[in-house]
């Protein structure tokens, strides 16, 4: 390990390099651009490619193509660009293409306030594309975690053959912290599994018992089929209900069945509490400070921080919520994650604290918000 003083965005770029990413396509957008700028410098030195495309649509489609050419690939953007990527995100889902999309959130709707932070993409990253699907979403709260979760995002993408979202925000992007970076061999790096059958017996969408099909890629002699239509195990278009259900249920279940390893939370002051703050990303830093302030004044508050926003393990959330008298969902938007917490807890216990700030929320705003209900 080596210690490095870097920003959250650079941590994402370094995490991707550690994970083996060698193709990056992107289109400039604040506050994500410096991920591409940093990689444009670094990646060619280690045999990779960075290309700025004509738009975000091209970027993500190129990333899907590059992944099918056998190279771990990534793109990074912010809310407006992510909106443009949604159709191809669905393409990555149905073709079971491993890739990582970074969304560094900024304030919206529309062009919003490009330079200011937000957590308002919680729904679009999980549900934005048409069709039925579930994809993993990880939300770091520090530069170190941006690095670690980027590696995890690639490992999950490769082992499950799915797109994975890294959901950061403008605060994490440009906050500088010491980060421990791994040397090769110091962290686990997972690569997609390859077929063991010869090309003439290979079925590109036939899953193993783990619901994930081995992946042959371009140029390996397997005559692979990348198919955006509903398809059977051969990759042939089918319009019958059986094939439709088989495929959609499998791509949903391959993610849901891993919820235990995908869903990560961290509890602070979690031994004895009456009030539970639930938060994620940069806002969780303020929520932690708020919990500390509340405790100092004798109010038993604790923080549950979600590192994973999809898939959620409601049982785990419920376990923490059951212990609390009141649950405050603290997020920098108009109230989005609160709907999930409401599903996990008894409804009348859950209070939404939507901060809708443009900076990292101030702990005192959270403290005040909590006090109102005591």
């Amino acid at each position, binding site marked *: 390990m080596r210690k490095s003083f870097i920003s959250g965005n650079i941590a994402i770029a370094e995490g991707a390099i550690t994970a083996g990413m*060698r*193709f990056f*396509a992107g289109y400039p957008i604040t506050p994500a651009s410096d991920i591409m700028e940093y990689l444009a410098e670094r990646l*060619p030195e280690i045999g990779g*490619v960075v*290309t700025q*495309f*004509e*738009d975000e*649509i*091209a*970027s993500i*489609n*190129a*990333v*899907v*193509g*590059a*992944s*099918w*050419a*056998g*190279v771990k*690939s990534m793109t990074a953007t912010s809310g407006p660009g992510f909106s443009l990527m949604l*159709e*191809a995100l669905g*393409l990555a889902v149905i073709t079971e293409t491993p890739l990582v999309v970074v969304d560094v959130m900024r304030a919206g709707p529309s062009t919003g306030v490009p330079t200011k932070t937000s957590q308002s993409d919680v729904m679009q990253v999980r549900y934005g594309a048409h069709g039925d699907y579930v994809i993993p979403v990880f939300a770091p709260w520090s530069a170190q975690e941006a690095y670690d979760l980027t590696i995890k995002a690639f490992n999950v993408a490769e082992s499950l053959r799915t797109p994975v979202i890294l959901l950061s925000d403008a605060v994490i992007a440009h906050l500088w912290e010491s980060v421990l970076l791994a040397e090769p061999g110091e962290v686990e790096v997972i690569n997609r599994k390859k077929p063991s059958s010869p090309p003439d017996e290979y079925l590109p969408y036939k899953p193993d018992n783990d619901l994930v099909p081995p992946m042959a890629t*371009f*140029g*390996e*002699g*397997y*005559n*692979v*089929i*990348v*198919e*955006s*239509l509903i398809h059977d195990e*051969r990759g*042939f*278009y089918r319009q019958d209900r059986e094939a439709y259900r088989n495929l959609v249920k499998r791509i949903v279940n391959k993610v849901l069945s891993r919820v235990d390893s995908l869903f990560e939370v961290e509890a602070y002051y979690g031994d004895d509490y009456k009030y539970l703050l639930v938060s994620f990303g940069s806002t969780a830093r303020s929520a932690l400070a708020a919990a500390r302030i509340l405790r100092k004044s004798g109010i038993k508050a604790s923080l549950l921080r979600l590192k994973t926003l999809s898939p959620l393990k409601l049982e785990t959330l419920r376990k923490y919520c059951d212990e609390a008298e009141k649950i405050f969902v603290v997020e920098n938007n108009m109230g989005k994650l609160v709907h999930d917490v409401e599903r996990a807890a008894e409804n009348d216990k859950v209070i939404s604290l939507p901060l809708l700030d443009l900076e990292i929320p101030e702990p005192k705003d959270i403290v005040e918000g909590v006090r109102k209900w005591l």
Partner: protein
Amino acid sequence: MVVSTLESSHPLDKYLRTARLPHIWCPGCGLGIALGSIMRAIDKRIKEGTLKKENLVFVTGIGCSARTSFYVNFDAAHTLHGRAIAFATGAKLAKPELEVIVIGGDGDIAGIGGNHLLHAAKRNMDLIVLMITNFVYAMTGGQVAPTTPLGLYTTTTPHGNPEPPLNVVKVVSSLNANYVARASVTHPALVEQYVYKALGMRGFRFIEILSTCPEIFGRHIGMRDPFTLYSTLRSKVIVKQSPSIEESDLDWGKGFVIGEYLVRDNPGYLDRIGRGLK
């Protein structure tokens, strides 16, 4: 009487996913002629050892023309409407030894995908793009396309198309492509010849292939019979050795000049980023 099994194999079967036949194309559609000619060019390259079958990747978007990726027995990607060039660019950049061919309708390539076409040509990206011009949005049932003639009835221009057609050959020629040609399914040998040539080049290679859609475009212009449409198109095609861009307009009145509009050997994008092979 003993009926012997019908011997139905074809010399190009080895390049086709015969398990997926019969294809979905209408009787009399020009797409089969286009695909056959493309396959013959590939066959020639493979036989002479200048192309490896396993390196060939077919990338298509969505549309009747894009369905070619169903039937080719190579690595094949049937992606999103308009996005084939972007997907193909990513694949080629990631693995330069691939020979990546994009096939699509004019709506797919020059309509919804127009920005990707412009930028791939501007980059001189090492790809072959074959655009099938059938003058209409065929797969979706006959709406106006970028190449639809001025004034024509389509299902979304019932009072006549108010827009003159897009001359994609001219657009791409104005950029940094290494090869720009126009062919027609009425002259299959030239389709084969141009694709064969493009396969031996680097950089961005663009071939527009005029094709017949009797089912829909034919109906719009009152030539529902495939033979009538085909012979009419054939009568309007003018073959030239080195045509000038000035005569490249898509004009049903003056006729369609086909030929090689642009041939050059500038460094491709991969050469410029130090990943070139040729």
